[in-house]
């Protein structure tokens, strides 16, 4: 974005911003700055999105730029591709991650290939947003975390914010990125924490982990809503005299393994925490790379604290499915026994 445009947009400090409001601010900022940005999805217009992530945007930018689509997810992703090839910058919303699976075909067979198969003649600067994760007593199919499916797709970027500030900065980066990005929003923390943020159009980098806490005893690696359990666990461990380094991976693909390796080189111990099912989750990739490149610095086996390899239960049991602070603390303590 040019400096002129940046200056033209009023930079304001927004006090007590939630994650979902930060998403909204980032969308509004970039739509004002760049007329090529358009939003599309189900119920994102008048209704402002079922979580209000797009609240007010149709009113401000018109129904041509904030497009309510028919109930057709394949269409939404496919249209975004056709728009992106024409140099629009579509930000498509899938209402819940549970309804994203029919668009994997468009992502794997088209969005992530368009640049490669045309040798750069066409490209696909699109963002696919979707709320995900459990913990809000939602109905069936509304609580899964399947980010690992996307992390396996070559050519894609997978981004998950865990705070209002990172939500704002990473979404701006995702929209400005010249390639397809899937941006998953942990809905459990949409309104859980408030942060003062600068609505200044500053993007965050898309290829580095965020170090949230320093410590020398154990490295806790997580992302999304689970960052909050992880930090609580770090605090509990600190009270017991163990200092944890907490890493928010945030940009899960491409994966900044260096930050994690550096930390583990220091601590010698690693616990990876994610809500998704264990088998072939992103935790496996991180643990595998630790076994490949960090084996010699590991004092203890890598621990994964994850969701089970079961169907996500209906909400009466969702707490039992999700990793919790106790499990994280216990895992960290196990690594410290070595």
């Amino acid at each position: 974005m040019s400096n002129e445009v940046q200056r033209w947009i009023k930079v304001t400090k927004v006090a007590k911003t939630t994650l979902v409001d930060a998403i909204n601010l980032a969308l509004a900022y970039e739509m004002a700055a760049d007329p090529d940005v358009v939003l599309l999805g189900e119920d994102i217009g008048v209704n402002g999105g079922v979580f209000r992530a797009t609240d007010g945007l149709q009113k401000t930018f018109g129904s041509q730029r904030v497009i309510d689509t028919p109930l057709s997810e394949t269409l939404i992703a496919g249209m975004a591709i056709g728009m992106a090839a024409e140099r629009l910058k579509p930000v498509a919303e899938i209402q819940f991650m549970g309804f994203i699976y029919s668009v994997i075909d468009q992502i794997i067979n088209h969005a992530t290939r368009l640049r490669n198969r045309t040798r750069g003649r066409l490209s696909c600067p699109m963002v696919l947003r979707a709320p995900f994760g459990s913990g809000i007593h939602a109905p069936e199919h509304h609580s899964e975390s399947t980010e690992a499916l996307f992390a396996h797709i070559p050519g894609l970027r997978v981004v998950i914010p865990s705070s209002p500030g990172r939500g704002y900065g990473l979404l701006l980066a995702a929209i400005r990125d010249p390639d397809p990005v899937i941006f998953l929003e942990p809905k459990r923390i949409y309104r859980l924490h408030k942060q003062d943020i600068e609505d200044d159009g500053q993007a965050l980098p898309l290829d580095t982990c965020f170090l949230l806490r320093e410590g020398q005893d154990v490295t806790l690696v997580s992302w999304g809503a689970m960052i909050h359990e992880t930090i609580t666990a770090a605090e509990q461990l600190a009270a017991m005299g163990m200092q944890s380094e907490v890493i928010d991976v945030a940009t899960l693909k491409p994966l900044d393994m260096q930050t994690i390796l550096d930390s583990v080189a220091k601590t010698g111990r690693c616990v990876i925490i994610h809500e998704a099912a264990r088998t072939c989750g992103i935790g496996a990739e991180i643990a595998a790379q630790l076994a490949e490149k960090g084996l010699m610095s590991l004092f203890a086996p890598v621990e994964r604290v994850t969701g089970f390899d079961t169907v996500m239960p209906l909400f009466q049991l969702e707490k039992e499915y999700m990793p919790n602070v106790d499990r994280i603390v216990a895992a960290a303590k196990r690594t410290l026994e070595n």
Partner: protein
Amino acid sequence: MSHLKPRLLKPDQEEVAPQTEPVKTYRVRGIPYFQVLNNDGQPVVELPDWAQRKNPLVALYKVMLKTRLFDQKAVALQRRGQLGTYASSLGQEAIGAAIGCSMQTDDVLFPAYREYAAQFSRGVSMTEILLYWGGNEQGMNFQHQDKDFPICVPIASHVPHAAGTAYAMKYRGQRRVAVCVFGDGATSKGDFYEALNAAGSMDLPLVFVINNNQWAISFSRKHQSKALTLAHKSVAAGIPGEQVDGNDVIALRQRIGRALENARDGRGPTLIEALTYRLCDHTTADNADRYRDSEEVKKQWVNDPLVRLRKHMQLLGFWSDQEEKDLNSRYLVEVEQATRAYLQTPPQPISSMFDYLYKSLPDALNEQRSAAMDQGHQSG
């Protein structure tokens, strides 16, 4: 790389005359619209025989009233924090009632999430529906209905299932029918079209019913498709399609019954669009005032399907105020009993996450199962 420079053949639009006459035109069968009663409960066409007799009418009315009273309770439970998100069927009870009363026991129902009336007449209990929205899997383990599919939340994804079941019925030479219900929004989804097309080309015993309540959350029917009616989508699959007044349970019962007969007798599938209106919010998590005029909603109350049938029964002298009162009281008691049973049902055990995953749990999962149980033990 040495490319041959291709020559661009210029378009020559300007030379093309705009009009041509077709050498023939395929006629397309019109889409009929059926209605039997008007809002005053009076017939607008000849009344079918059965609709002049008390029993079949009362049977339909009962399911509708039960559903209406259940619905009020469920919404109240949600508001009090005793139920999760709930999808009301307010104003749309006639569709499910007509479906339920048209199906035979060993037919199979594929509901979306608003067809409680159909489910109740198929043997599903109110307690079970509450358990489902209350976050307990036991709610889809119907105790008195072993074949019907559970509620389907991912829109239209159950329509292909109905095609598969219908195929199985046909393959086995059974005189059974699959009935699949879904919303107006669902008719934009690929799954629906693929199954509709296959039902036509495979000539399946399958009845598709669209609950067109005019809204898909905040997106109106008008925006959803430029198709003149949603029943027109049948033309794409070469199967019969029709529109029925979805607040007219007699017309619905008549037409759905007819479609089932056709399917059962080997005359293939039908697409029925039932025209009704969502008098409630999309779900208890929704606030429809954000996107639709409350005046529009108010006006739609004149089409209340319960009132219409009740008026008809009263005109025929089949229904007294006392009967109305008694039935209300009876269902209110049943609803309370169901609520109590629901609230008293314990959560599923932690082990259940594993115990229904596969028929028998693979060894690879034993460790996780133990860990889950230990954790439950610690916290419980």
